[in-house]
């Protein structure tokens, strides 16, 4: 054993593989130029998760500023920019992208197709969304630089006119807001067209429309709704830009324009938008809950009808965001009724999920934990929604912290919980490895506790008269302790999300091998290897029922007998 430099056999292979520059470029090239629905789906999800962290960081800054009355953590102007960017980011860069992440990755696999209907449109849509988001965030370093938060929009995510007009917003903040959302809006339109075309034209043999997995059905409905609602938003933003640059007077009240018209335009987009975001969350829950309850979804046709019903009714409820703007009493009454009607299809959905679990053998793996919590939280969010639909009570609650608590119950309690559930459920398919259940349980319970500490308590300052979008508040209002609890809950959620990020990375390298079908599930994506090969299926699959894999696993008792 002298100090030999003798080459030991095998040592060359055992040395870690070094990536040459050409390898890295080729790898990068494969992602940038890809038209594969799975890669684009992953890109959408990474983009959504990245901006979830960014928007979350903004929320934490907001909560630190509000932890006590008269704090000076950030200046009023920076606070206004941060909550505007928080809302815009979470709705347009997280909400509108996660839906296409799941839809892109899963719809072709679930309907037995080799790719989306328009692969190149798919790539185009993603990159429009991508660059739209970059444009929005460029505002932070444009004009004035990071200190003072540059030119970031500061007019709330609904950007009510005439505050966005030149007289009240000189500089370029509203321009960044409008232009970047027009660009991401084009991405949304392209992706929506693609989802609808794929679901109706690319189905494998035997996959009739009434056999489509609910995830596919509900995403089709959400995409249809997105196609309808992005249009008025884009129109309004172009009108705003005409006002700002070409001397138009659409919303310029000093020259006879109308502030109320902007509100109508925005909310006829803005309210259906809520359903564009939440329907794909329902879609995830409608896949996860049956598999982990070990039962077929209860009332499949009713679930489809309820989804279409929600989309239809949601197009006629927008002015419930405007009960205080001075509509006539008849107008107010109309929107009270239409808003309450949304409660009927949504309560049908809740009952159907309950009935699916009823009589099952529920396995509480992490995906199911998230989806069970989703059902409770969505129920509560629906009930506070009923309260807000009562116009006279809305005159009190509107623009208060009660409203913020209500819609975060939807956006976090329903949508983010379902996103997490969906990621835990399909991560094995995407990467071939299971996410750690241990970290998953930590993630779930911390996030669940943090969520309730924050958003349950947040209702109360609203009832005590605390309006939203204020950078600080008076010490003698009795809101201080409550706000401190809310902020602490926010920090707990932040820790949970960091655990999730660690889990994503750690499990990618060290997670347990998943195999084709780790959850013993029933839809077609679980019949291919994990991760699925290029073009998904070696031979075209044939769907025999709504649960093709159930039929394979239980030839004695197949589903098609009952359809």
């Amino acid at each position, binding site marked *: 054993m002298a100090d030999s430099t003798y080459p030991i056999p095998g040592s060359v292979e055992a040395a870690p593989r070094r990536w040459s520059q050409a390898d890295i470029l080729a790898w990068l090239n494969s992602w940038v130029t890809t038209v594969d629905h799975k890669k684009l789906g992953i890109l959408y999800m990474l983009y959504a998760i990245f901006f979830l962290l960014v928007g979350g960081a903004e929320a934490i800054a907001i909560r630190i500023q509000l932890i006590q009355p008269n704090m000076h953590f950030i*200046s*009023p*102007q920076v606070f206004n920019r941060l909550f505007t960017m928080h809302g815009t980011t979470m709705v347009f860069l997280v909400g509108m992208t996660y839906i296409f992440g799941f839809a892109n990755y899963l719809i072709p696999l679930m309907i037995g197709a080799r790719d989306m209907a328009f692969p190149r449109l798919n790539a185009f849509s993603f990159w429009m969304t991508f660059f739209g988001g970059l444009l929005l965030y460029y505002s932070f370093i444009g004009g004035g630089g990071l200190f003072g938060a540059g030119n970031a929009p500061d*007019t709330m995510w609904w950007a*009510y006119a*005439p*505050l966005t007009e030149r*007289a*009240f917003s000189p500089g370029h903040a509203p321009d960044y807001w409008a232009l970047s959302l027009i660009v991401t809006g084009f991405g949304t339109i392209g992706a929506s067209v693609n989802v609808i075309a794929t679901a109706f034209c690319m189905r494998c043999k035997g996959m009739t429309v009434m056999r489509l997995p609910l995830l596919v059905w509900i995403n089709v409905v959400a995409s249809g709704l997105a196609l309808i609602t992005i249009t008025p938003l884009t129109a309004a933003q172009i009108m705003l830009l005409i006002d700002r640059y070409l001397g138009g007077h659409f919303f310029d*009240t*000093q020259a006879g324009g109308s*502030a109320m018209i902007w509100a109508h335009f925005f909310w006829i987009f803005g309210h259906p938008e809520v359903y564009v975001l939440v329907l794909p969350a329902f879609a995830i829950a409608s896949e996860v809950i049956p598999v982990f309850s*070990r*039962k*077929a979804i209860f*009332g499949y*046709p009713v679930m489809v009808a309820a989804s279409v019903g929600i989309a239809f009714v949601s197009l006629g409820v927008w002015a419930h965001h405007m009960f*205080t*703007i001075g509509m006539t009493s008849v107008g107010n*009454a109309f929107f*009270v*009724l239409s808003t*309450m*009607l949304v*409660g*009927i299809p949504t*309560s049908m959905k809740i009952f159907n999920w*309950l*009935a699916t*679990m*009823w009589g099952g*053998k*529920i*396995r*509480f793996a992490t995906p199911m934990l998230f989806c*069970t919590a989703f*059902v*409770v939280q969505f129920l509560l969010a629906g009930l506070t929604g*009923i309260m807000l*639909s*009562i116009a*006279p*009570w*809305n*005159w*009190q609650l509107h*623009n*208060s912290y009660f409203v913020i608590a209500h819609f975060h119950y939807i956006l976090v309690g329903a949508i983010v919980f379902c996103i997490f559930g969906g990621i835990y459920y399909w991560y094995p398919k995407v990467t071939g490895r299971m996410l750690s259940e241990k970290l998953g349980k930590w993630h779930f319970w911390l996030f669940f506790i943090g969520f309730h500490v924050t958003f349950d308590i947040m209702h*109360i300052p609203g*009832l*005590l*008269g605390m*309006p939203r*979008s204020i950078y*600080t508040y*008076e010490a*003698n209002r*009795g809101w201080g302790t409550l706000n401190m609890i809310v902020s602490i809950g926010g920090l707990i959620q932040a820790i949970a999300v960091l655990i999730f990020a660690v889990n994503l990375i750690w499990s990618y390298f060290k997670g347990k091998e998943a195999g084709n079908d780790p959850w013993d599930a029933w839809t077609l994506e679980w019949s291919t290897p994990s991760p699925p090969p290029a073009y998904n299926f070696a031979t075209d699959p044939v769907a025999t029922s709504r649960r093709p894999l159930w039929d394979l696993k*239980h030839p004695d008792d197949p589903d098609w007998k009952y*359809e």
Partner: protein
Amino acid sequence: MLAKCLRCVSFSAKSWYVLFAFLSFQTAFADGPQSTPSIFAPTSTPAHEIYDLSLFVLTITGAIFVVVAGLLAFVIFRYRQRGPDDITEPAQIYGSNQVELAWTVIPVLIVVVLFLTTARMIFAIQDAPPPKTALDVTVVGHQFWWEFNYPKLGIHAVNELHVPLSNTEAPTPTYLKLLSADVIHSFWVPQLAGKTDLLPNNVNGMWIDPLHTGMYVGQCAQFCGVQHAKMLLRVYVDTPEQFAAWVKNQQQPAVSDESVAAGRHVFETQSCMNCHTIQGTAATGRFGPDLTHLMSRDTLASGAMDNTKENLREWIRHPDTFKEGALMPAMQLNDQQLDQVTAYLATLK
């Protein structure tokens, strides 16, 4: 049967009273240490009607929550997997039209009840005609302060609205006409009424019928720019005698005190007068608050700080100390001018 139902509702309404008692902090009187504008401590007619309706709605939604969440808890407990060996599949059930119909009809009935109750109250509050005894006030929202004009009394008040106490026998409600000089604002004093927006190029209205004297706080409830958070609002419900005295004082022209003539000279020769009005002087600006009776107010800069001489001087010297981004510019006065103009303004009772 119906009477029984109503009794039932009013009983549960009472239990909500108890449950929310902890929320209903009594409003402290002027400058008291604690003043929480809770919507569960109404002192005026529209707020009170909304409060009663809210208890009714809370009862119904609370019952729905108990039933559905109870079912879910039962399902989670009863139908969970018992141990890893329990791997036989349960019986597959695909749906039931009868059950679906049942849980569609129940929400429909609830919606009908809630809608009819709500619609009745919308019309009752929104379309209530003003009685002849009503006081009219025109409210104009500005970035970031409130202008209150009493057209019949010839008064221009700012940030602190004074209204007379009303009573149920001979009501003297106050009807507010809501306008905006720039962007959208929203008038919200939770204990008196729900909020209504102030839109430029548009006329809105609301009314209050206060039944208890006191000072009620509120603030702008529609984001209106950088200092939206410091667009605070106070409503003083005065006894008829107090109100008459207040009106009488407000109708006087500004106090003219020769000992502070130097300060008045500063005010009239600097650009102060471009934005502010002081009745009886050369200052007739309309962009900022009317200062004719500045010292009759408890706060400065729309509630941003107490109205003391030191605060007033600092506010004129450097408004950003209290309200960063307020539209009042720092006037770059020297110390002597500051002292003079502060002394002058301090005489404007």
